[in-house]
């Protein structure tokens, strides 16, 4: 069973994603339930969904400072950040707190 998750973009983040605020995605088979993490997801989002400059979304292997990530409405800092293991049905929200989008 492939993982199916919801991604949301707001606070100006949506401007980097073709102005889409909400996107339902089915991840490819390489994302195995129970082992795939946010560390795997971020580059996939960057390479498959991002329509603007990558450096405005990611810095090194994580999100750029100033982008808030919520996993099922919980700050990802409390969920292990990059180590969080993706579960089917997760809602992952990226909110820009930056002025310049």
């Amino acid at each position, binding site marked *: 069973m492939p993982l199916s998750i919801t991604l949301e973009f707001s606070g*100006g983040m949506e401007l980097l994603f073709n102005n889409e605020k909400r996107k339902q995605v089915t991840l490819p088979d390489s994302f195995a339930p129970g082992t795939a993490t946010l560390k795997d997801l971020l580059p996939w989002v960057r390479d498959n969904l991002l329509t603007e400059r990558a450096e405005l979304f990611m810095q090194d292997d994580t999100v750029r400072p100033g982008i808030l990530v919520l996993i099922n409405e919980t700050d990802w800092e409390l969920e292990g950040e990059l180590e969080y293991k993706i579960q089917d049905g997760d809602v992952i929200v990226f909110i820009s707190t930056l002025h310049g989008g």
Partner: protein
Amino acid sequence: MPRPQTQGEGGPNIIDALLYKFRLALMRGAPLSDGANVLVAVSGGPSSCCLLEVMKRFHAIDPANPRKPRKFGKVIVCYVDPSAVLGYPETAGQIAEAAAAADFQCVTVTLESMFLNADESDPGVVNVDGPSTEATLVKSATSSLSPNERLQQCFQSLGTATAKEDMIDLLTNKAILRAARRAGCTLVLRGDTSTRMAVNTVAQTSKGLGFAMPTEMAERPTWPADIEVVRPLRDLSAKQIAIFNRTAKVETFVTPGVTTGMPAKASIDRLTEAFVVGLVKDFPMTVNTVLRTAMKVRTGCEEKETPRCTFCDGPMQEDSQDWRTKHTVTQLQPTSEQDANPPAASVLCYGCQNLCRDRKGALMLPGYILPH
């Protein structure tokens, strides 16, 4: 399974915690404003939309105590519409709807209207021309261009993204105060967060605008004399605002600005923001440290006798006056010619002179910066 509350920043009571901090900052900033008419400046971004939501809750009749009088008189939402230079004219309508949903009046002021006088009469135009170090002001009492065309021309001759962002900020700030006076509001609320204020502090300092810092930072600025400008979200971070907006389902209307989608080094403001926010990641106290330091700065800019820039109304530093005097003396221009085309430094502050620095050709400004 989604959890009911957003955890991490203030726990489940993020809404109450934010309202509490808003109230405290408002009481400190405007302790004598009972009954005042209030203008709430809303740009559509996350913090000003949060401010609108918080004001809606603050101004609502308390169901437990319906006879308790409201603190304020009228509450008016003000949107300064930059669509003439940035596009997205639909934002004005979206903000008007958000204001109506909160039961507030809404006024929209266009950026180009700042090329007219407050009474909408035509002040003509002033062209800034000549080499940047010795720029002079050339006034035309009339112009066949519409305010929109004047703004376009002004914007096109600004040389850098930094200057464009600064010009939009300057005209926006002026427009907010003008709208407040027109609507009879003596209190203006702005949505600046602690994060934004720290970024502004560093950016303004790197632009050489430290002289005006006490006005920018004060909890109760003494200038302008007729209107109190208060930033009641100043004790909240951009992250706290983002979580509040998510929890309270606050809609935002973010539109691309001058440097949106451009590299982080596109302007001083963008670069500074990336720098401060990057520091916060490893040193969470950065914002508080910058703000505590900035609040200690005293420059004398708020003294009554401090001359004011005729464009941005910001304080002009004594030193640049000295510089101007020396400069004028060494020029040995005949008095009549000097009166006709005064140097930019005689009426514009350092920041506004900076705006003129990298211009391409002559820079068109509103005629009222030269009263005669």
